[in-house]
């Protein structure tokens, strides 16, 4: 049994909000509410969710960019938050990140070569000359040329900038790449190019992706396993193909139905006003077509349903 590449156990992340008044305690917003997942090398994992689901917070916690309130994150068996800051910096060579905004994630005042080389500065065992060679290798892998290393980000289009971001993520030859909405800001035709690139990297360079997206089609295209996130929790997990063909959780069903498709009209859930949320019950109960009394009383746990599928629902579909 191989050591899983990434293991997240009961991750919780709370944010402190402003106090409603001077003597009241701070309000807490629980962005991630007990999430666990396992990623094996070679099996890319996708998290689907809408805004407010906590998926970006999850991505940042996995990358150790945020300190979780509780829970562990293990990369290759090592618990990230137990490492010293020097060990953590060394561990970062194995996991890199691609961000959503191709315009904001590259420093406009640095040349591309310098941007792509940044993760290498951290690695002691790579010399200056080796650095230049690796940068070129990375640029070529994403379809750019050596001459591009001397240009500035503003000289490139959105799709090209995202390639530069991918080149930067690959330069340390990481095992895991966390991609937070990598193609959402791109035009359809450019999206396709970048998705093809990411597929190629999976196949040829053995990169495993941890992909965060609101777009089911993108996740389905790149990932073997998928988790659907709602209000900080996974409400359904399973192999991608099976999950999209026959979802078990009503929210997954709603997402699939609402996605604009060419083949059929989107099924719009009746635009009924949401019922008041019942604390302690299922977070989705307020919107759920199939909600019953039990749903408002007790929050369902994520339970295995066989065949690698799990759902957090009292009445799975």
């Amino acid at each position, binding site marked *: 049994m191989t050591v899983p590449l990434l293991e997240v156990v009961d991750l919780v992340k709370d944010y402190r909000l402003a106090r409603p008044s001077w003597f009241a305690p701070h309000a807490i917003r629980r962005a991630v509410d007990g999430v666990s997942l396992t990623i094996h090398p070679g099996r890319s994992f996708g998290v689907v969710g*809408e*805004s407010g689901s906590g998926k970006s917070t999850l991505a940042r916690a996995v990358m150790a960019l945020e300190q979780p309130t509780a829970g562990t994150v293990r990369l290759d068996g090592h618990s990230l938050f137990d490492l010293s800051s020097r060990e953590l910096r060394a561990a970062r060579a194995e996991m890199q990140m691609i961000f959503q905004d191709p315009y904001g994630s590259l420093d406009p005042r640095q040349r591309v070569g310098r941007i792509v080389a940044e993760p290498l500065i951290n690695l002691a065992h790579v010399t200056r000359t080796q650095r230049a060679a690796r940068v070129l290798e990375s640029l070529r892998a994403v379809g750019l040329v050596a001459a591009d290393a001397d240009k500035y980000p503003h000289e490139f*289009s*959105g*799709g*090209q900038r995202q390639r530069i971001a991918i080149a930067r993520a690959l330069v340390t030859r990481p095992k895991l790449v966390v991609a937070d909405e990598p193609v959402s800001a791109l*035009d*359809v*035709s*450019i*999206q*396709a*190019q970048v*998705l*093809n690139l990411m*597929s190629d990297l*999976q*196949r040829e360079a053995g990169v495993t992706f941890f992909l965060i997206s*609101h*777009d*089911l*089609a*993108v996740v*389905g*295209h*790149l*990932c*073997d396993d998928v988790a659907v996130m709602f209000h900080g929790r996974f409400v359904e997990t399973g192999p*991608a*193909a099976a999950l*999209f*063909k026959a979802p078990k959780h009503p929210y997954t069903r*709603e*997402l*699939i*139905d*609402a*996605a*604009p*498709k*060419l083949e059929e*009209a*989107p099924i*719009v*859930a009746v*635009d009924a*006003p*949401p019922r008041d949320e019942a604390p302690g019950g299922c977070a989705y109960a307020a919107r759920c077509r199939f909600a019953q009394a039990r749903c408002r009383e007790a929050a369902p746990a994520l339970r295995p349903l066989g065949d690698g599928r799990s759902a957090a629902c009292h009445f799975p579909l």
Partner: protein
Amino acid sequence: MLLAVADLAIDLPTPDGPRRVVHDVSFTLDGGDNLGVVGESGSGKTMTALALMGLLPEGAAVSGVLRFEDRDLVKLDEAEMQKLRGDRIGMVFQEPMTALNPLHRIGRQVAEPLILHRGMSRAAAWTEAVRLLARVRLRDPERVARAYPFALSGGERQRAMIAMALSCSPKLLIADEPTTALDVTVQARILDLLATLGAQSDMATLLVSHDLAVVARHCRRVLVMYGGTVMESGPAEAVLRDARHPYTRALLEARPRAGAPRGERLRAIAGAAAPAGAEPRGCPFAGRCPLTMDACHATPLPTIELAGDRRVRCLRVGPDGRLA
């Protein structure tokens, strides 16, 4: 014929001289009809919408005919355009947070066009505003009217914007990427709402979007734009089921499908969109198009009329209306 656009061309000022970002655009829109304008960034679709509203950036030059309700919008001055905006033409933008004034309550903003164009009193306009907020299916419209924009969610804000756009019962609603910034479940509801409201009040809708699927399901007719001009147009169903232009075809094939096998290679369009105006005489898609011929770079695009009120602009389309 509510709206007739003929030979629309838009030039934007740049440090290197004027640049033509939209050229040769013609289409019509009847009252109560539903037209979608699809294109990627740089296609000119947003500029076209802005031209209709008279909201192009300063220094822009417009030529051609924009006939709305028998008046040529190109010839109107700012004061006359202001009378039309909000009254006969309603607009919904992409980012409700920036389109709404953060310092005014929602009710006041929805009431504003009523006070301005219908001469209503503050009180009467407020009551009407609450009624409009209910009409756009907002829960507890009284609470929403009293709230400030930051207190609402993205979907609620966009509904408020729609209420504002509809307040004076305009004849034409222009929506520029109204749901792009919203979650997919909210998007579906908002688009459905727009369609319903349009049908109820016999209002024509012009929906601008980069998402083919959105336009396919919510618009009766579609215009596909690339490089500043229209490549193909016709009934949405027909165009998307049986696309005749190489660009439309490529766009349809480039989308990942949720059910497809993992890692299946997408048919991406090579290269990147050239800035509009790069091919002054030929087809903007020449070079990137898998069917490019030499003639494509230099010959002005023909407009080929097909059965079923369809038009294609491609040198490769033969007399039978199919790609050769």
